[in-house]
Each structure stands twice: as C-alpha cells, then as structure tokens.
C-alpha cells in the first residue's frame, strides 16, 4: 500500500516535471528574443547567421529541438550553455548550493522570528503587544523582499556599513572548501572566520527574504494558537497549574503548528523563487542570479536547465512537506 502510494507520487512528480519541461521549452522559444540575433556582429551575412544557427542546433524544428534536448536530459546531459559555453548541469549544480544555503538560512530566520513573535502575540493576546506585533507583521508583509533588500543596503551597507553589500564571500580569502556549501562546510570545519565572512555577505539578503515570510508565519501561527488556547485540553492544563508559556509550548504549539507547517512548505518554494531578484540585488553568486543572466542572454539551454532544477526542487519540497505533515498528524498517518 505504502509502495503503491509512493509510486503514484513518483509518477505524479515525473508528469509534473515533463509538463514543466514542455511549457518552458515552448515559452522561451515563443518569447521575444533570439540568441543568434543578439550575437550578430556588424557585417554578418545570412550565411553567417545560418552557420551560427546550425552551431547551436537552432536550425531544427522546435519539436526536433525538444526531443533532442529531452533525450539528453534523460541521459543527464542538459546541453551546453550558449553564453557560458559550459555544461549546463555542471553550471547549475555549481550554483545551486549557494541558493539553497541562502534559502535555508532565510527559512530558519523566518521560522525563528515568526514563531517567537507568534508565541509572544498569543501569550499577550488582546494587549498592546499583540497590536504592535500585528502592525509590524503587516509592514513586513506589505514590503516585498527586494525592497527590504534596498532598505537593508542603505542601513547596514551604507549608513552603518557592517555587512557586505555584494557577493557571497570576500575575494581576498583563500577558500579551502571541497563542496559548494560554503557556509555549512565552514561550520563543519570550525572555520568560524570564514563563517563570519560568509554571514556578513549572507545576512542582508537572507533577512530580506525572511521578513515577509516571518510575518506570514507570525500571523497564521498566532491565530492558530489563539484558537487552540480556548480548547478544553488546554484549559485543563491551565487548571493543572501550568504557566501560560508552558501551556503554549507544551500543549498548544504542536497542534497549532500543523497549518503553519504546510504554509511554510509552500512559502519555502516562493522563498526560493524570491532568491532570483534578491541574489541579483546583492550580486550573490547563486542560481537565481545566473537565471537572470541566462534570460538576458537568451541562453536557451541554461534557462531550461535552471527552470527544470527549480521545478524539481519545488516538487521535492512539496513531497517533504507532505511527509512531515503525515508524520506530525496521526490522523493522516493512519488514514
């Protein structure tokens, strides 16, 4: 039964990815911009244009191009980037860890900040503290991440320049890393000098990404907590003499957190999407920044590769959220 569910889920994922592949392939070929037209130098003749088209395989029909690309993808060959002239898969996997690190740090920040705020708001419900939290969450949510980025650059990049405005790591440093997960690897190696340098580069983009998500978490979790706090078993806990904080943390939080968990999963995919603009703003060397360059250069194989990997990430995150939800919710686990 479990295996059957797993296979169905796997099949759904593959169909989703196949659909994404078709849509991306068609859309970026229909969208304005021709990579060959962009690299046409003054004086190029029709023969030159034809030569370049053939060189990049763009002289074939769109259906032929799709199946050539798809058969390559199945073999693990995503093609060669037009602008970077390198293997697409290698490029993508070289940059993906930077984006994942940024997104994970932002997620941890958002959960910590949003969770703490929600608990505080629920504990102080009906008071000025809750009203203050609502106002702050509203402001955090209504300002988009890239605008937070600009505000942070102005505050902590220019006025009180304690963080680095651009890049992922200081160029002067010798990097001993084996993996592309610089931040996590620096922690494992106990190289806190590097961890600090990486944090100085990562904090502002991570905070910019985290703030709107933290606001959503704070609002939803606070609301769930307030509902749960009126239930009988919670009232019973109070009667037993637990303090309000103990009641929230020991009794109410686990049940109230379930809807928030689903939301966090969904929002995490949005957060990864948000890295595209924020990475650009902070010149952070992640996949999102590379995606913008690929679009500007009309680098068709690279766009396809990046989008497909993003799509794979999204379905995997959704799968992980579903599994975690089932794990935490006994009714689903036994259903």
């Amino acid at each position: 039964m479990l295996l059957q569910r797993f296979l169905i889920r796997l099949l759904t994922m593959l169909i989703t990815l196949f659909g994404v592949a078709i849509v991306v392939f068609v859309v970026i070929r229909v969208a304005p911009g021709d990579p060959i037209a962009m690299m046409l130098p003054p004086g190029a003749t029709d023969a030159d244009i034809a030569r370049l088209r053939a060189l990049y395989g763009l002289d074939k029909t769109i259906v032929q191009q799709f199946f050539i690309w798809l058969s390559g993808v199945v073999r693990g060959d995503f093609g060669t980037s037009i602008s970077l002239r390198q293997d697409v898969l290698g490029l993508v996997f070289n940059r993906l860890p930077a984006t994942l690190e940024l997104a994970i740090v932002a997620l941890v920040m958002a959960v910590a900040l949003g969770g703490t705020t929600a608990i505080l708001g629920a504990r102080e419900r009906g008071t000025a503290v809750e009203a203050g939290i609502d106002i702050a969450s509203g402001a955090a949510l209504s300002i988009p991440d890239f605008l937070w980025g600009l505000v942070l650059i102005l505050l902590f990049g220019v006025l009180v320049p304690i963080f680095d405005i651009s890049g992922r790591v200081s160029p002067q440093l010798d990097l001993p890393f084996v993996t592309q997960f610089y931040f996590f690897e620096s922690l494992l190696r106990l190289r806190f000098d590097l961890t600090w340098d990486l944090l100085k580069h990562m904090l502002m983009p991570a905070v910019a990404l985290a703030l709107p998500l933290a606001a959503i978490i704070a609002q939803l979790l606070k609301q769930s907590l307030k509902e749960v706090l009126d239930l009988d078993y919670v009232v019973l806990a109070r009667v037993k003499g637990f303090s309000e904080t103990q009641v929230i943390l020991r009794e109410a939080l686990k049940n109230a957190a379930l809807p928030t968990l689903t939301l966090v999963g969904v929002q995490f995919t949005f957060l990864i999407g948000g890295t595209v603009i924020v990475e650009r703003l902070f010149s952070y060397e992640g996949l999102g920044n590379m995606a913008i360059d690929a679009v500007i250069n009309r680098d068709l194989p690279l766009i396809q590769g990046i989008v497909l990997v993003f799509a794979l990430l999204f379905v995997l995150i959704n799968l992980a959220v579903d599994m975690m939800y089932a794990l935490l919710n006994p009714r689903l686990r036994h259903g």
Partner: protein
Amino acid sequence: MTINRRELLGYSAAALGVAAVGLPRIAKAAAGELTIAYNVNLPSWDPTTGPSAVNPTIQGLYQSVFDQFIPQKPDLSFAPGLLTEWGWNDDRTKVTMTVREGVTWHDGSPFTPEDVVWSLQRAGDEKTGNPIQFVWKNVNNFKIDGNKITGDVVQFDPVYFKWMSFLTGYILPKAYYEKVGAEGFEKAPIGTGPYMVEKFERNAFLRLKANANYWGGKPAFENVTIKFVTDAASRVAEIESGSSQVTLEIPYEEYDRLIAKDGLAGSCKNVSDIGMIFFNNKDAMLDKNVRQAAVMAVDKELLVKRLLRGYGQPIATLETPEYAAFDPSIKVEHNPEKAKELLAASGYSPEKPAKVTIQTTKGFKPKDYEMVQAIVGMWRKVGIEATIEVYEIAKHYELRAAHKLAPAAFYNWGNAIGDPTTSTGFAMFGPSPHSSWKTDDLDAKIGPLWGEKDEAKRIAGWKAVDKYIAEQAYVLPLLQFAQPIVHAKGVNVVQHISGALLPALMTPA
C-alpha cells in the same frame, strides 16, 4: 550609578559585538589594492567565441588580461602593441605585420609570431563559432619570417586592421591553448596583458594580479578585485560605503550626488556609443516630408540638458567627433515651424496627424524611455502622432534582423573603432542585418565604399553618404552618450572613449 552582573554581561556582549563587526569602512584603496564594482558579469574567458565576444561592455575585462593585435589609446587612436607595424602592400593583395619581441605569456613562456598566426587562423575558422569570422577569413596563407608575418588577401576589407582593435581581435596563446583545451583555458586563462587572472568566481568576482613582465610596463595597482555588481543601486551603495573604489554606469542623478561627497570624485566623458532612432521604410516614413519633419521637430539640446543633466553630445549624423568620418559641416536644424510646413505639404497637421509607432527599450540606456516620451511630445506639436511600444533589447535585435521594426525605433549603437563602416555602414546599408532603412538609392551609394582601397577617398565617400542620409532624413541621430565613472579621490582614472573601463589606466592619486 551601579551596574549589576547581568547589565555588565550585557554591555560586554554589546562591546564585543561592535568590535567583531568592525567600525564603518573608509572609502580609500589599500596600498596596491583596488576594488571596482563592475556593471556586468563576465560569462566566458574566450574573447573570440560566443555572445561574450560581441558584448562591448566586457571588453575592458578582456583587455586587462589579453592583448589585442593592435591596441587603442583612450582617444581611440591606434598604437603599436604586440604588432609594432602593420599595413598593406600597394595593390592591397597582401598584409604585413611585425611582431614585438621579448614578450612573455603569463605562464612565462615566450610570445611568438606563431601565436599571432594561430589566433588569426582560429578567428577565421568558422568551426570555432567566432561571430566576426567574416572579417578574419578575408586574409589567409600566412607566412612567418623572423618576427615578420605576411598574409594573402582573399577579399579586401579596408577595416581589417581596425578590427584588430575591436571585437574578437585578441591574441591567445597557441601552445597553452592546445595543451589545456577550451575547458582548461576557461578555468585558467592566460594572456600577455597587464593583469593576470588570480581568482575567478563567475557571477561574483575576479581577482587580478599585476603582470610584472608586461611589455607596456607593470600597472600601478598590484591587486585588482572586480566585483560583478549588476544592479545600479547596489553599485551606488558599493562606492558610497567604501566597499569599492571605482564604479561606472550609474544614473546621472546619482553621479552628481556622489561626486559632491567628500572623498569621491568622478568623470563623465562622452564615449563612442550613440543613441539614435532607426526609421523603417514603411508606412508614413516612406514620405520624405514626414521623415524630415520628424527629425526637425526634435530638440536634441533640450533632451541632453533636461533629461540627461547635460551629459552627452547631440549629433547630426551617425558619426561622433572622435570617428574617422565625422563631418562637422553636416548640420540638421531644429525647426518645429518648418516641420509643420513640411507635414502640411503632405496633408498632415496637429489636428490631422501622421500616425506611426515608435519602439523603445526602457532602462537599457539612461533615460531611453523618457527621451522617446519627450520626442513623441515634440512630434505631436508638429503633426506626428506616435504610439510608444516598449520592448526588450533582445526583441529589438530579432525584429531588426527580420526587418520588422516599427517605422521608428530607439537603439544604442556602439562603434569603438570609430570607422564609418561600423557606424553608418552597417546601420544603413540595406543588405546588412543591422540596418532598418533599406532602399536602392542608399545602397547604391554605400555599396562601392566597402572595397574602396584609397583611404582618403573612402572616408570622403562616407562623409558624402552621411550628408545624403541627413538630407533624406533616413535616420534620426540623437546623441553621443556620456559614461559616468565615480571613484575614490585616492584613485586616478583615465576614461577610455571606447567605454572600456581599464584598471591598467588607473593609478594611485
């Protein structure tokens, strides 16, 4: 006041925090160190293939590491470089080149004439994907005699040697490239240029180290870090916070604000890029009166003064004062009243306007969209009603190559070698995929100039073509762009008219 243990711990933690994050940085370069916030990424280290090869904005990075066959001085004039002499024989059937001696590659191996020949042959080989192959294939059958090279002309191209200072005109190391291959070269490129690649993180930064053996003399800064900061607001923050000592291509408003600050200075000189509006030979633009009125109605001085804060130079033809075929005697008057008369002669008026579409980018060049908005306003007053259509620059390329641009379309044209073929020539000659206006009369005038062997006659011919185009109003030249560069006062920056930002031209103040 007494401090308890908890407060003491709190204050200590705060003090440690301040010490850890450090005090605000000061905007000055450390000795021998220079950091530049650059406006574009460097996609590839091969300056002769793929889209990077024809991207003018990254040529400054290539020119830091590689030498071109013939370098250009900041005023666009040509100077001896790795080729110390070059030229044609009398009947233009052979080229001759003399190669500089005593030069070494970054790995210490000697630079030889074989490197020059290999680079030229490779550039002309269609299999390499060089987008400018059509220039390099015009000479072949190279022969080396000592440090002299000769080659046979397949098809005479008067601009062959000028292209040696332009896109894809770089000398690469034959032996090293053949040893490491394309992939190895991408990982560890070497050249003969003023700087050597020390570290490169794509999309992030490039660390350069001064080449102590550079034939032109060791550059002033020992280490240069190029940060790729593609967002203009972030580049402003980089220079304002002191994280970088030099940056470029920021909005003119920010340029004026920053250079007024303590510790910062700047230069904003005219470069070889021009802004223009292509006319397409269709609809109302087929009417000479409409075209002439469209040109006369535009107050270019006002555009520069009001929209570009005075930065830039209005132009009357597709040549700027630094180009070889610039002719100051060609003037195009701003005369709205005469424009009205011309339109009236064709039956148009502000009440019954000629209707056209004008395409433009938005944010691709400074105030591009705003300039087009202003032009539409100026046109409306004389009797031309234009609808603005915004597109991405990639779409412009596609439409232009397919000859499907709207009757009017804004574009930015670069011409770092300043030759009329690479400005008026390719922009206006019908068979060129870059032209918009395609009519037999103009093609008949331009056609014979491509192979003209007498240089004086050739330049005079192009001036005559420019005059004819201005009379016929086949295009609307707008202005020569100025490039804003902001730098710390501790750095001297020499601006290159090609628009290439060259660390080798920077020195400590």
